[in-house]
């Protein structure tokens, strides 16, 4: 039974074998649990993924290729890449700064800051988008003033970037904070007693200590930045060729019954997800110690 065998392989390190181990369930229980897990994964994750590529290629390779010749599709891809290339570096800087402040210093309001960092996780993306509309929209608080100065935020690139930055903010900070807290301040203190400036300490000591966790956070942040729908949908205005990102474009094409086009675009996003997953797994396998926690001294 292949399912059962792979389940057994997972338990191989147990030298006492399945018999006699207190925590081992009977064979039939294990098989049922494994079967449920596999069925669930297949139904809810694998099948949709296959369906995306199947639908995308249903009209043949030529039709798939042709769907990317559409200028609107190209504009959507370009916009998504632009947004990600602005939002991810911004969150890289914010995330590192916030994590550094929280992990290495004591200050008033620290727990409030930690709570605020989690806010984007708990707020619905649509609400986040609406907040930006209320702030920067035509009837918003600062929208009219900005408009007078020739800056349009809502229904334009700045709004999309703002919404994306908001939604993806926690990814990098959340990845770094536990690791930096775990590593403590001794390395930085050592560098300082040796005469290094704060800047030098950051580049030579702090950053190298967290680089793999940082890369991991950037990867997750990027995946979410490219895939974000809700918050962006509210602020974008869905102007074809101008403010449509890839996820928004998928929806438009789908609503127009252009299934090949919609799924072709979706297949790009799915491909991105798979690549992210592969790199993430590689990082976890190769540098697991310096992502989850500091290596043992």
């Amino acid at each position: 039974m292949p399912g059962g065998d792979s389940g057994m392989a997972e338990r191989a390190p147990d030298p006492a074998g399945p018999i006699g181990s207190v925590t081992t369930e009977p064979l039939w229980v294990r098989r049922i649990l494994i079967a449920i897990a596999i069925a669930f994964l297949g139904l809810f994750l694998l099948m949709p993924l296959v369906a995306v590529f199947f639908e995308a290629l249903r009209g043949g390779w030529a039709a798939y290729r042709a769907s990317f010749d559409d200028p609107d599709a190209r504009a959507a891809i370009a916009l998504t890449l632009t947004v990600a290339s602005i939002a991810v570096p911004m969150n890289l800087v914010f995330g590192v700064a916030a994590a550094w402040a929280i992990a290495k210093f004591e200050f008033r309001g620290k727990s409030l800051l930690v709570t605020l960092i989690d806010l984007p996780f708990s707020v619905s993306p649509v609400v986040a988008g609406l907040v930006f509309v209320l702030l920067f929209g035509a009837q918003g608080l600062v929208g009219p003033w900005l408009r007078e100065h020739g800056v349009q935020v809502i229904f334009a690139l700045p709004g999309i970037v703002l919404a994306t930055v908001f939604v993806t903010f926690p990814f990098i900070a959340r990845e770094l904070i536990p690791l930096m807290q775990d590593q403590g301040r001794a390395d930085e203190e050592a560098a300082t007693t040796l005469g290094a400036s704060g800047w030098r300490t950051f580049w030579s000591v702090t950053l190298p200590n967290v680089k793999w966790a940082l890369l991991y956070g950037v990867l997750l942040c990027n995946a979410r930045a490219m895939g974000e729908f809700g918050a962006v949908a509210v602020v974008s205005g869905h102007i074809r060729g101008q403010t449509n990102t890839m996820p928004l474009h998928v929806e438009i094409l789908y609503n127009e019954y252009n299934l090949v086009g919609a799924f072709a675009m979706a297949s790009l996003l799915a491909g991105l997800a798979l690549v992210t997953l592969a790199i993430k797994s590689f990082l976890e396998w190769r540098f697991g110690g310096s992502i989850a926690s500091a290596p043992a001294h």
Partner: protein
Amino acid sequence: MRVQAIGITKRFGSDDAALNGVDVEVRSGELMALLGPSGSGKTTLLRVIAGLETPDSGRVMFGDEDATDIPVRKRRVGFVFQHYALFRHMTVFDNIAFGLRVRGRERPSRAEIAARVGELLRLVQLEEYGRRRPNQLSGGQRQRIALARALAVDPRVLLLDEPFGALDARVRKDLRRSLRDIHDATGRTTIFVTHDQDEALELADRVAILNNGILEQIGTPDEVHDHPASAFVMSFVGESSRLPATVSGGRVLFRDTPVPVTAGIGADGPAALYLRPWDIAFTSGPAGFAGHVVMVRRAAGGRRAEVALDGPDAPHVEVGVPVGASVARGENVRIEIRGGRIFPA
């Protein structure tokens, strides 16, 4: 370089003061131990001297210079951290060279750095380890590298926080010796923190004993051991037993029997009598106090018998067992008190 901490007070949050008006003077070229139980403030004092903590009040003097307001990176102290804090992504060579490379304009040339690092690696007897990474070294080797890294910047004072705390007994012994050798070879003022009295007494020229943020006593190992200034020092340094006693008319009485203690007798009233194992002896005569042996154990220097005295409270005392004497558990014995020290109860 003479180092002085003058009236240092430091408080963390609303807790009791970690340090409360501590005065310590470390003479130039001296090897000083800061000894105390955990929470006594010894590490905080070391960090204040290094500049890693800012005192709420008090001054830190390096020689005649007031160093209190000099930031850590300009203070030129060598600090060895309890868990070494080696830069894990750098080789041993790069770790030691770090302090030389960050100097900016006065940065030595590559060749000078290489020569200096080589010299330090020889000093700590790890010449062959320059290319290794910290995680390829044993605990004792990491400690030596941390020491070499701290020495690389030619510090005015060397500070070590529990330098042998995380090492096993044998490595600890070797390292104590090499710290002493390195200290003697360079003559650099050195302060180390420890909770281990043996380490402090064996290694240090002088020992400063802290308890609850207060300096209890500062002196040579012999002074603090033989002439403890307080009951805390008496009980923390060396072995001792405590008996409830009374002072009456300039005499010390234990159970209404005079005890031959003359020094440090205060006003009449209850007092605490502290006895070293050799202040108590077995006796065969009718004098002394009856009791029975609860346990016999082997201490580093000899054997100790723990004797429970008969009578109220049945206090226990530790008696030094002479070589060749036979004492068995459960045996009924008589002991006499031949000396001791008296402190206010």
